[in-house]
C-alpha cells in the first residue's frame, strides 16, 4: 500500500463560533486510488474531528456528499484523489445556506422537489397483475429515473443562485420522470406547474447542471423536452 501526501484546503464555518468562514488546511496521507471522501475522513478521524460533512453510501448512490471540489460540483465519493493535481480545494454547495462546514440547508431543495408532484398519479383501479408498458415506452423516461436528489445540478445553476423562485433542474428532472411515463395521469397538472414563471422557462440552457450530474443524466435535455412538451401542448 503506497501512501501519498496530499494537501487539502477546506472551507470551514461553524456559526456557533465563527463570524466568517476560514480555510482549514490539512496534509493527509492517502492512496491515489482513494476517493476525495476518504481524504476527508482521514482529516475527520485523525486530524480534526470537528470537520463536518454529510456522507453515507460512499459510492455515488445516496447523494449525501455533493460539494464543490476545486470549484465545481461533484460527489466526494465519486471522484478519486488522483484526478486532481496539487492542492484539493473543497467548499460547500452554492445557493443554499451554509449550516456548518460542508453542510448546507437542504430543506428548501426538498421543498422545491415536493412542489412538482413528484409521485405517480393514476386514479384508475389497477389491474390484478401489472399495468402493461412496452420497453420503448419505458425507455422514454429511463434517463431521469437515475436522479438521486444530490442537488449537484440545482446548485450549479447560475439562474438558481440568483432567483430563489426557480424550481431548479433537479425538480424538473423528477417531474420529467413522470410526465413521460405512459402509465401516469398527472401530466397536465405537472406541466401546469412547470409552465409558471418559476418553472422551465427560467432555464437558460447553460448546461452546468448536465456537467455537474454525477449520474450522467442529460439534465438540460430533460428540461428541453419538458419545454417542447409545453410548446406542443399549446399548438
Amino acid at each position, binding site marked *: 500500500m503506497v501512501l501519498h501526501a496530499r494537501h487539502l484546503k477546506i472551507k470551514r464555518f461553524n456559526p456557533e463560533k465563527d463570524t466568517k468562514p476560514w480555510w482549514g488546511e490539512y496534509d493527509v496521507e492517502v492512496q491515489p486510488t482513494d476517493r476525495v471522501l476518504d481524504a476527508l475522513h482521514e482529516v475527520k478521524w*485523525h486530524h480534526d*474531528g470537528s470537520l463536518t460533512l454529510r456522507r453515507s453510501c460512499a459510492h*455515488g448512490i445516496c447523494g449525501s456528499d455533493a460539494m464543490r471540489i476545486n470549484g465545481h460540483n461533484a460527489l466526494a465519493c465519486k471522484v478519486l484523489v488522483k484526478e486532481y493535481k496539487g492542492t484539493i480545494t473543497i467548499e460547500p454547495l452554492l445557493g443554499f445556506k451554509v449550516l456548518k462546514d460542508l453542510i448546507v440547508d437542504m430543506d428548501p431543495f426538498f421543498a422545491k422537489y415536493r412542489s412538482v408532484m413528484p409521485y405517480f398519479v393514476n386514479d384508475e383501479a389497477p389491474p390484478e397483475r*401489472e399495468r402493461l408498458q412496452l420497453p420503448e*415506452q419505458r425507455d422514454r423516461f429511463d434517463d431521469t*429515473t437515475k436522479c438521486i436528489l444530490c442537488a449537484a445540478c440545482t446548485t450549479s445553476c447560475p439562474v438558481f443562485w440568483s432567483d430563489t423562485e426557480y424550481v431548479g433542474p433537479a425538480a424538473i428532472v423528477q417531474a420529467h420522470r413522470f410526465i413521460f*411515463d405512459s402509465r401516469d395521469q398527472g401530466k397536465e397538472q405537472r406541466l401546469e406547474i412547470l409552465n409558471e414563471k418559476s418553472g422551465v422557462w427560467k432555464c437558460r440552457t447553460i448546461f452546468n447542471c448536465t456537467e455537474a450530474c454525477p449520474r450522467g443524466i442529460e439534465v438540460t435535455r430533460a428540461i428541453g423536452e419538458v419545454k417542447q412538451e409545453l410548446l406542443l401542448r399549446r399548438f
Partner: protein
Amino acid sequence: MIHTIDALVVGAGGAGLYAALELSKRGVPVAVLSKMYPTRSHTGTAQGGICAALGNLEEDHWEWHMFDTIKGGDYLVDQDAAEILAREAITTIYELEHMGLPFNRTPDGRLDQRFFGGHTRPDPQDPAKRIPVHRACYAADRTGHMILQTLYQQCIKHAVNFYNEFHVLDLIVKDGVCAGVVAVEVRTGELHRFHAKAVLFATGGFGKIFSVTSNAHSLTGDGVAIAYRRGVPMMDMEFFQFHPTGIYQKGILLSEAARSEGAYLVNGKGERFMERYAPQLKELAPRDMISRSIVQEIRAGRGGDGKDYVFLDVRHLGKAVIDAKLPDIMDFVRVYMSRDPLTDLIPIEPTAHYAMGGIPTDNDARVILDSQRTPLHGFYAAGECACVSVHGANRLGTNSLVDILVFGRRAGIDMARYCADRDGVGWTELPAHPEDDTRGAITRIVNGQGGENAGNIRKQMQTEMTQKCGVFRGKDDLRSARDTISELKERYDRLSIQDKSKGFNTDLLEAMELGWLLDIAETTVLGALAREESRGGHAREDFPKRDDAHWLKHTLAYHTEDGVVLQYKPVTITTYEPQERKY
C-alpha cells in the same frame, strides 16, 4: 421538545417507508424519523433485483421460491416466515408496479425477470435436478434506488410526516410496553422526546463492524444496539453474509446481476473455478458458497496476478447488454478501478454485505424477547435490523428487498391494528425523565478526557473483524477477536472528541455509533465462537460440517450486567426437512 404521535417509524429505507405508507393509508398519525434525508437510505444502493414467482418468463410457483429460500438459508430459516415471504412477494411486486415503479419490461410489456443466485426450478428433463429460474424483477441495476424513490414519492403523496436528520438515540420502555423514543435533532443538538403508541425500528444493518464492506457509513446498527441495551436480545448475529463480488479493497458491490446476465468468475489461471464447487449452478450458486470458493482459490495460490483477489469477467457480454442492464456497476469499475469492463478483467474479493441476524420478531414484525416468543408490546422491527428469520444462515440474492417490503408492509398493517386497540387502553405513561440516560451518555463523551481517538478504535475493530471473523472462522482467531473487542470497549470508555458544538456534532454522533458497533461486534464474535458447526454464512474451519443434531437452533444474545449471555431458540420447520445442501 415533546412530540406525541400514534405511530413512529425509525429509519426511512424500504421497510420504514412501506410501513409508514400503510399506516398513513389507514389514517393513523405517523412520523418517520431518519438520521439522514430519507432518500439517502441504504435501500437505494440495492442493485440486482427483487424476486417473486410471477412466472412471467417460465413456469414458477411461490412454493419453489419458499424452498429456495429455506435451502439457501441452510435450513435455519423459520419456514412459516419463508412461506409468507414467498407468497406476499407476488402481491408486493404488483403493488409497487401500481405505485409507478419503473421495472424493466418484456417485449410484450409485462415485468421482465432475470436469473439470480440460488433461485431455481426443477429441470423439466430431470425433476431431481434444479436449474436457474427467471424470478427477479428489476430496474436495470438500480432496483433498490427505484424502490426507495417510489416509496418516498408515495409517502409524499400520502402526506407522511418526516423528521429528517433526527438521530434516534434511545428507546423508551415502561413496564414492558414501548412508549416512544429519544432523538437528537442533528441540526441543533437539541434532544426530543417522541411519545408514541407503537414504534417501528427499521434502522438497517451494521456492516460497518467490518473494514471491507459494501455497507454505507451510516450502517452502524443503531436500532439493534439500542434495543439490545434495553433488554431485547440480538438474534443469529454470527451469520453475516459476505458478498462474493466486491471491488477489491474498496468493498463496493458489483451486483450479482452481472452473473445473472452471464458474467464469469475466473481465477489467476483463467479457470471458471465455480464449475468445481457448484457444478449445476456455477456462478449462480448462493453467495456464501461462492465467497468460500473464492477464498479457497486465493489460499490455493490461484488468485489473480498472484494476489488476494480473483476476477469477474464481463467482457463477453458485449456493450449492448452492459449499457442496458448493468450501467451503474460498470460505471463503478470505470470510476473506482480505472478499468474498462469491456476489455479488462475486474479484480474482486468477498465484501461484508448483509446481516442475517438482528432484532428477533414474529411474522407481524412484533419484537419478541425469548424462545417463548414473549412480546415487547408496541415495539416492532423490520428490514435488515430485524431477524424474522426468513434468511436463516444465509440470505439469497434479492430476498433482502423482498424481506423489507413484505415485512415492512406487515409491520405497518399490524401497527395500525395495535394503535386502534390501544385506543381503549390509553397511552402508556412515560417514565419521569426519559432523556436522562441519553443526556448522560452525551455528556460523558463530550467531556471525555481519556484521550482515546474514535477513529483509531473503529479502524482496529473493523480490521480485526474482517481478518478474524470473516468468510472462514477458527477458534483461535475468534478468541483473539473477542479479547481485542473487549480491550477496545475499555478504550472506548476513555474516549475524547474534538467537536464540542451543539449543531451538527457528527464527531459526537459517530462516537455514539461506534459504541453500538462495538456491542454488535462483541455478540457477533461470541455467537460465532459458541456455534461449533458450519452453516450458511458461518464457516468454522475447525468444524467444517453442519451439525443439525446440536445446532439447528437460533442464537439469542442478551445484554446483562455480567456481560453477554447466549440462549437458543428452536427453528420452525413446517414443510421441508433439512437435507444436505448441494448446488
